[in-house]
């Protein structure tokens, strides 16, 4: 490092001084834990490979080592990880959309239209949100199928399968509540069909429908209600269940073995 900088003389030394000052500062060492590669530098060694995981937030998601079969591409369809990644992608694009959207019957459709026609990248981000949502339903479904066919729901992973089925249901609910928000003909009548079906719940049918719609018929109250469910309630619940899901994956001994 120093040799390559020799041509520029003092600049290399200054750079090293600056680096030492920054890495020796209290702020730096308060950000990076003892043992972090950002404190002590990284050269490729088994110890440093462990430190990358051990001294970063990734340790919550991954152990330091995994069984070799876990990284074989044939077994790493990575569908669970991709579902999580799509959730993140949907959160990012969704936050962008929230800046331009008001959940009232009078303004919702106009806001979406304005987003597509006069907001920079508005159309692209809305498309990404929509397609990523459909893709997430698909990937969660395929993830469930893979887990079943590998028998990965068996002991000691029974309870994580239960959490997984709950997450599948939550994914469908997230997608379905988002379906109404554009407030176009497609949204209105798809949700009409869906909520009419829920209205046939035994005993509580009409009450369930009333609570879901915020009234006897779909209207601006329904829109507000489903908006809050879509952007706050269901993501909140989903994040909690995902945290338990990921925690249990590690506690139950990592991903399941090969067939």
């Amino acid at each position, binding site marked *: 490092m120093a040799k390559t900088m020799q041509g520029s003389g003092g600049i290399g030394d200054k750079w090293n001084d600056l680096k030492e000052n920054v890495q020796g500062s209290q702020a730096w060492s308060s950000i990076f834990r003892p043992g972090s590669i950002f404190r002590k530098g990284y050269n490729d060694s088994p110890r440093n490979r462990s430190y990358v995981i051990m001294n970063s937030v990734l340790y919550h998601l991954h152990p330091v080592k995994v069984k070799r079969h876990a990284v074989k591409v044939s077994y790493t369809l990575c569908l669970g990880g991709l579902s999580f990644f799509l959730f993140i992608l949907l959160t990012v694009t969704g936050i962008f959309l929230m800046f331009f959207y008001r959940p009232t019957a009078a303004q919702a459709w106009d806001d979406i239209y304005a987003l597509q026609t006069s907001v920079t990248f508005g159309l692209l981000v809305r*498309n990404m949100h*929509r397609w990523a949502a459909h893709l997430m339903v698909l990937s969660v479904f395929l993830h469930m199928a893979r887990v*079943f066919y590998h028998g990965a729901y068996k002991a000691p992973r029974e309870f994580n*399968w239960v959490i997984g089925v709950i997450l599948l249901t939550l994914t469908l609910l997230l997608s379905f509540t988002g379906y109404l928000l554009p407030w*176009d*003909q497609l949204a209105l009548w798809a949700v009409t069909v869906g909520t009419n079906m829920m209205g046939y719940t035994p005993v509580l049918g009409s009450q369930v429908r009333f609570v879901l719609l915020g009234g006897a018929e779909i209207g601006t109250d329904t829109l507000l209600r489903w908006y809050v469910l879509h952007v706050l309630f269901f993501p909140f619940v989903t994040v909690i269940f995902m945290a338990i899901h990921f925690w249990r994956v590690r506690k139950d001994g990592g991903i399941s073995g090969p067939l």
Partner: protein
Amino acid sequence: MSEVPEHLLKRAQEARDKAAAKKAAAAGGDAPAEGSADSGDSGSSSEADSRIPAHLLERSKAAKARKAGGGEEASAEGGGGTAVATKPDSAVSAGAGLPTGAGPGGHTQRLLTVVKSGSIQDIKAKPQDKVHVWPHLLVIEFVAALVCTAFVFIFSWLVNAPLLELANFNQTPNPSKAPWYFLGLQELLTMFHPMVAGVTIPGMGIFILILAPYIDKNPSNKPEDRKFAISLMTVHLMFWAVLVIIGSFFRGPGFNFTLPWIDGLFFEL
């Protein structure tokens, strides 16, 4: 006790000898201790050998002396040390009942027990073939995330999400379809009472799915051992897939059966 490893027994014996030697040294000043490896050393030099910093030893010695004699002696002994070393002494002397925190020979740690491996920990009999998560797994995950983002980005660039005309309560589109993942249910609606198709069947489906690991007691995960479970799941998944495909592509106006290559598609994502 026969199960304590020999080297630990040896170490404990050495520590005991050393403690005895030191006790003798403290009692008799420069008197050499018997049976110890470093028997020729004086008390002060054996203290220098130990890993414990001098000021801490000084402090513990002072506390011990104080317990035996009085406060003046402690301050006289500690006078050789720094102010930092003497200050905690007075704090300790305030609480007379506090332990001095030093064991035999000035050691602050001692062996309490030896726990055999395997008695409280689950020891894997044979080592497993493992690889580091960084870089092997993280690189794969990163590439997967990049490919996924690229796919969504390019697809969104090429295909626009539908935005039909403003919602209109007075104009029901024909056909009206639910989102694609509910079209299987809507398809069932043509065959059963809405309570059965819309609530009972999907509710039972989710319930049985949740119970799957508790119903399936077969411990094997090999496909050849679980032909029944795999067949049942495949039939179940295909049942929904076929219903969703029929509902999506083969239902036209009035939700009547159509052929997409003749009448066109009645489907919006």
